[in-house]
Structure formats: C-alpha cells, structure tokens
C-alpha cells in the first residue's frame, strides 16, 4: 500500500553555519537528523520532525530552523490539509487518532475578551512596591460563621491548605511525565509556598519528603493508592474527569511503564495502564459521597478531600451535587486542558470552556447559598498572570497550571507526548531523555515562573485599588467584556466595556 503521509515540517539547515558537530543527531529522539559517513555531513529527514525545536535550541551556531512543510493543498475551508491527512492515517491503520497536550482548535478564548479595571480619582490605586499586597488564600471547606466564647474562637475549622499565591501545579501523572519533572514541580511548589498534584500515577518514594506540599490524586484506575500514599500528601483529589478527555479514563502506553513507574503505580512492568472511564464504584452522586467519606476515614479527617471534574454541559448542577456530597474543594477542568495522551476527537470536541463553566458554577453555588462550603480551583487555559486575575475575579479560589508549568520546564507544545519521545525529558520515561531535565534547573525555572506571576498579580491588584486577594474573589465588577454577545455577558455575569 502506498503511504500517503507527507512531512508536517521542513528542517532548514544553513550550510554556511552548520559545523557538522552532530549535536542535532545526538539530541533528536525522533531520529530526524543523521550523519552520512560517506559524505561526512549531517543530513535531515523532514518526515520525522515534530517541531519540538530541540535541535534548533541546542545547535551551537543556530544553523537550524523549522518551517511548516510547504506542500500546498487546493484552498478549501472545509477540507484542510490536516483534515485530509487524518483520513489517510485512519485508512492505513484503522486506529483511533491519538495526540498529546490540549485542544488547539480556534474556539474563542474568553480570557481575551475580558478586561480589568484600574482605580482612578474616586479610589486610589495601590503601589505594590511600597505597600503590602497580600495574595494569601486558603483552600478547604469554610463554615458560614465563626462562634466566639469569652472573646476566644470557639469554632474548629477543618484543615485548610494555605497558599502564598493562588496558583497550584496541576495533576500530571508519573508515567505521563518523568520523575525529574515531578521533582522539579515538587521543589518549586515548596519554595514558592504552594502545592503540586501527583496526578493519577501515584507518588514516587523519592518525593515523600515533599508531602506537605503535595495533593495526591485518586483516579478511576486507583494507581498507587494505599494508606501510606493517602496520608503522605496534604490533601486528596478524587479525579472523576479531565478537561482534555471528558468521559474517558487515562491511557499510559506500555512503553512508558518502566520498573519505577510499575512500582509506583502497583502494576506489572510493560503493561498498558488504562484507567476505566467511570470509577466503577461511583455510578451515582451518593456513591461519590461514600467515597469522599471513605477517604476521610482513611486519613482520620485530617486532610481536605476534593473532586476534579471536566467542564461539561451541566457542570453547575454537578458541582452543586459534589458540594453537598461533602467535598472540600472542586476542581473544574475546561476543554483546553492538557493531557499526555488522548483520542484526538475527544480532545477537540468534548467539553466546554472553563471561563463559562467557572462563572456558571460560582453563580449557582452562590444562588444556593453554599459557595463557602467548597473552594473552587479552576484548571485549563491559564497562560499568564492576567488569566489568573480574571479567573479569580470570576469566582475561583485558585487556579491549576499544567501546560504553563511544563513550558517553564522546556516543553515546546509539539503535542507528541503520547509517543514517549519527548526531547525535553518531560513526557518520557526513556532514561536517555529523562536526564535532559535537570531537576535543580527545572525547579528553579518553575519557581521563577510562579515568582514572576506573583509580582505581576500584585501589580494588577494594586492597579484595581485592592491589597488583599479575598477582595478580588468573585468580584465580577472588576471585569468588562469586549466583543462578547449579550448571552456570553449574561453567563459570565459581567458588564460590557463602556457600561
């Protein structure tokens, strides 16, 4: 059978600058470069290139660049080159198309349609360099009121997670990403006073020391779940769904299950780790209630237990049910969320934008008078600090960052995580590749990202005349919509710019 697939990318080598040092040959896990002994020259193979830019960055003379492969299809808005090639691939293999990272389609990005306020004249803005600017926030179940006896606090609060800034590292499993990536995020979260999430692959032995900053996840496959694991972290998150692939479970190919992954997940080496679509002990809301309390019993009611769901059509009603089922926090993951591996169609067509889901859930919980009973953590699509500020203004207590965190470690979003050949040492278990991510450097970079965002958030808060994060939470009056329909404005609960 003829193979119809043509290269996606073109590797351009400036021969004047290339010194044939072979760094690119050694660094490309996809073998897109090789050394021709006869010609004594480095040659490239465009069809293998995935545009991860490893060779471009490593080349000492900057002799390389990557371009889109200039193969033209006839102009067709419906049948684009991409769409056509997907069909060729399926005709050849009969298989499900797989991909990594988050939805890349041009759906609207609501963050870019919301603008922030600044205080002038009637209310002064505050200078974060000269005045205290407080970003501290607490995740956990909060009572409606506090009782005092004889001037002393009588109410006992359930355990709260204390964050120095409202940004947490999102759940990415050990298996989908490397141990060095986990080490980098764990250390960075400790340095900057926040948390990281283990994802559904369990917690590696070496990371137990970061327990006080760890949120452990219990997903449908229950990988790595044992009493020690549950008690090792500061909080537990039950993963019901994930924004990138609502309705289906995780999939870790057998190639990525090496000895260490196998030990941590408690599954045989080399076997595919397939998480079931639902938790097979949660078929209705009362089953979730039971699981939440089982986990609380197992940890002596000392740890907050939260639930992560994907943002789907009736997310507000689901969230209300979860709050009443006893969860201490709810994570909402929008359709742009990332993944190590997901079927392409599920990733691109299932789920709704986080901005709308967040606004809907916050409004619904407030209408029912139960907003204080759960903290809301918003996940997916957070690219920068202004997205964080907008998310808090819509009603989130904190945000999770996944893709942004990986990018700080070196990820170039080539969307090939599912192949296990991540040239940056992040989404792979290949020891030749994982060594590329030095956790000391990784932790420094991830911590720098958080520090940079801390500073930017303080600038924006000060501009709004606010010096404490709690005055921004749910403060929809700080947002104005631009280029949005009346319906969108209504769902987001904000006015239009100019109003």
């Amino acid at each position, binding site marked *: 059978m003829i193979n119809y697939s043509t290269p996606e990318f073109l590797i351009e080598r400036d021969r*004047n*600058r290339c*010194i044939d*040092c*072979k*760094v690119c040959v*050694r*660094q490309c896990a996809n073998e897109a470069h090789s050394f021709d002994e006869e010609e004594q020259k480095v040659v490239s193979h465009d069809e293998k290139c995935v545009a991860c830019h490893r060779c471009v960055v*490593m080349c*000492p*003379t900057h002799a390389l660049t990557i371009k889109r492969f200039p193969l033209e299809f006839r102009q067709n808005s419906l049948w684009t080159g991409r769409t056509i090639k997907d069909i060729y691939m399926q005709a050849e293999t009969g298989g499900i198309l797989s991909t990594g990272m988050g939805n890349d389609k041009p759906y609207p990005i609501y963050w870019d349609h919301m603008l922030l306020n600044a205080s002038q004249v009637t209310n002064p803005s505050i200078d974060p360099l000269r005045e205290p600017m407080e970003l501290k926030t607490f995740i956990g179940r909060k009572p409606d009121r506090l009782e005092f006896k004889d001037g002393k606090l009588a109410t006992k609060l359930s355990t709260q997670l204390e964050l120095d800034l409202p940004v947490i590292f999102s759940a990415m499993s050990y298996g989908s990403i490397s141990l060095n990536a986990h080490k980098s995020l764990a250390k960075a979260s400790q340095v900057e006073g926040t948390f990281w999430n283990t994802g559904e692959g369990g917690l590696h032995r070496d990371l137990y020391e970061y327990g006080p900053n760890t949120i452990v996840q219990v997903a449908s496959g229950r990988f790595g779940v044992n009493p020690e694991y549950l008690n090792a972290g500061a909080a537990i998150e039950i993963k019901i769904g994930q924004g990138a692939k609502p309705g289906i479970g995780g999939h870790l190919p057998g190639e990525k299950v090496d000895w260490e992954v196998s030990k941590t997940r408690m599954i045989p080496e080399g076997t595919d780790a397939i998480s079931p679509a639902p938790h097979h002990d949660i078929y209705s809301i009362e089953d979730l209630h039971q699981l939440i309390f089982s986990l609380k019993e197992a940890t002596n009611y000392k740890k907050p237990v939260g639930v992560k769901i994907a943002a789907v059509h009736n997310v507000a009603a689901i969230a209300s049910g979860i709050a009443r089922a006893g969860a201490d926090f709810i994570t909402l993951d929008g359709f742009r969320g990332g993944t190590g591996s997901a079927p392409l169609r599920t990733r691109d067509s299932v789920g709704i934008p986080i901005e709308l889901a967040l606004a809907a859930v916050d409004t619904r919980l407030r209408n029912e008078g139960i907003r204080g009973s759960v903290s809301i953590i918003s996940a997916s699509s957070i690219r920068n600090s202004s997205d964080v500020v907008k998310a808090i203004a819509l009603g989130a207590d904190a945000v999770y960052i996944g893709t942004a965190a990986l990018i700080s470690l070196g990820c170039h979003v080539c969307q090939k995580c599912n192949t296990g050949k991540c040239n940056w040492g992040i989404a792979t278990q*290949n*020891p*030749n590749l994982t*060594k*590329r991510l*030095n956790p*000391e*450097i990784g932790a420094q970079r991830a911590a720098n990202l958080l520090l940079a965002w801390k500073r930017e958030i303080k600038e924006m808060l000060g501009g709004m005349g606010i010096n404490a994060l709690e005055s921004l939470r749910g403060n929809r009056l700080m947002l104005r919509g631009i280029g949005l329909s009346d319906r969108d404005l209504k769902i987001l609960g904000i006015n239009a710019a100019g109003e």
Partner: protein
Amino acid sequence: MKKVYAKEEYCLGCRLCEVHCIVAHSDYKNDIVKAFKKQEQRPLPRVIVEENRPVSFALQCRHCEDAPCTTACITGAMQKDPVTGVVTCEESRCVGCWTCILACPFGAIARNEQGKKVASKCDLCSELGDIPACVKNCPNAAMVFEER
C-alpha cells in the same frame, strides 16, 4: 584547587563541551563557525564524553596531586604549576612519544597528529581567565567547577 567535576546523572551526551573546548583553544575564540570552518589545524577537544547509554559523562584531565604524566614525561614538557596546580603540556618541548598517555590512569590525554606530534590535554582554560569553557557552556549543568 578548583577542578571540574562531572554529574553524570545530568549529562545529555550532546558533546557541546567538546565543541566549546575546541573553540576556546582555537584562533577564533568568539566565533564557532570560523573556528570550525576557517581554522586550518583545528585543535582537538581536551574533554571527551564517555558513553555507555544511558550513562554518559565528560572526562578531562584531573590535574592530579602526584601527576603520573609529569613523572613519565621524558622531556619535562608536562609540568604541574606549583602555584595554580594546573598540569600543562608545553608543546614546544613535547616530542610526541606518548609515554604520558600510557601513564595516565584516566585516559585523559589525546594524540594530536595534525602537524608536529604533540600530546593534547585539558589546561583548565587557564589562558582564558574565566571558568572553563566546557563548564560554562554545558546546557544541563552536568559539570561544576569547584573546590572539594
């Protein structure tokens, strides 16, 4: 005395250390392209990456306290500087007998046979007056320059 120590858990096996060592010892210390394409007798890299995948690390002269190469050298070209402790090969006196190569327990000396035969080995970039080029340019901090 500060020496270069390798951290093999972070070595990528990219051999950029070798590339930068060459450049640092060439006539074009600031121009990689010219150092490789224009220089007629390209210097040998004095750091060598040893590999047995997935393990790899950069190896160079250890500037030993009691350097066997200096005892073995028949002309006295191999000298340990009494002040800095750096062991260097004075190429004008080297006759290319390779005795030092036999004596070196680390295999850190190479044969440069491009013109006059000389032994080629790490000099801790003493002429540059900076931290060694291999350490400075390692993309993954797989080498450190420190006192131990």
